């Protein structure tokens, strides 16, 4: 089972600052009003407090919604019948979505092979030009993957059919040069698009 890597949702967003400031200000004013001791003023203070907390909750609502939808779309992982993969191999991979149902028109996937290199020097003509270390990426293969699902027994499980071309390069990882394989899955559900990347390992063995 391969787990995807989820980019973290920011815990703090910029618009929280004015919201917190306004809420604290409202609560402060309510406190001052209530300190007067008069029954009417206490009622006014409580009203202001309810208003401040209510406004804060309303302000945070889209954020909570985003978190809820995100959790609902979390992909459980991929189950591969064999690991690692070989060149020329075709495999049926099981895909599970933890909370939302999978539907063929909502799932799209790509098998991607990309090169990643890290270098210090560039060349202008024949003269080496020093520059800051940089990492370059290039997709060398992008293969659309067929999705079949959902399964009869589980609406949250489907299958992807992967085929690794026999003439492709296997996974290669050195200090500054890499050839990497990954499966990019995109799920569009409840109006929210999510992409998940599953790294794959392809060994230098070609299926006869």
């Amino acid at each position, binding site marked *: 089972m391969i787990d995807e890597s989820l980019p973290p949702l920011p815990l703090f967003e910029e618009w929280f600052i004015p919201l917190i400031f306004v809420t604290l200000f409202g609560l402060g004013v309510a406190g001052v009003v209530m300190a007067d001791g008069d029954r009417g003023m206490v009622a006014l203070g409580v009203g202001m407090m309810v208003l401040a907390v209510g406004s804060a909750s309303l302000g945070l609502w889209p954020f909570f919604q985003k978190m809820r939808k995100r959790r609902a779309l979390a992909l459980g992982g991929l189950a591969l019948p064999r690991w690692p993969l*070989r*060149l020329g191999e075709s495999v049926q991979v099981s895909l599970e979505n933890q909370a939302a149902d999978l539907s063929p028109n909502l799932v799209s996937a790509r098998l991607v092979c990309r*090169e*990643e*290199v*890290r*270098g*210090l020097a560039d060349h202008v003509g024949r003269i080496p030009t020093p520059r800051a270390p940089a990492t*370059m990426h*290039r997709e*060398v293969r992008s293969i659309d993957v067929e999705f079949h699902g959902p399964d009869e027994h589980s609406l949250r499980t489907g299958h992807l059919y992967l085929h690794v071309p026999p003439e492709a*390069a*296997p996974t*290669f990882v*050195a*200090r*500054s*040069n890499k*050839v990497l394989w990954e499966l990019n899955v995109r799920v569009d559900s409840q109006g929210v698009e999510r992409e998940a990347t599953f790294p794959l390992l392809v*060994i*230098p*063995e*070609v*299926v*006869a």
Partner: protein
Amino acid sequence: MITIALESERVEAGQSLQARIEWSCTDGRPTRLESTLYWFTEGRGDTDGRRIHTETLPIEEGQMTGWTQIDVRVPEDGPISYDGTLLKILWEVRSDLKVDRGSDERAVERVTVQPRSGMR
């Protein structure tokens, strides 16, 4: 002068690479012949590489010609030869003849490492 004759220019990962290396020297005193199998990267990034095997053949005094045979197993996990967009992975056999009171000599021969064949 050094000549590297590969039994085959293509070899599968995990298989043996065999080569016959002939050398001759007309100047100075040859002391040893070093033969190495290695891979390295070329391209936009910094170079990576690894020496897989090195064999040193000592040469007796007065010997001005000779040959040797190397038989090296290419690692199963490669890497295999690759000609990509940002990087290349190249394999070579190199022989260096060390010569006292003369100039060293070198010969390099490129090898293609292919993925091994597997069962379905």
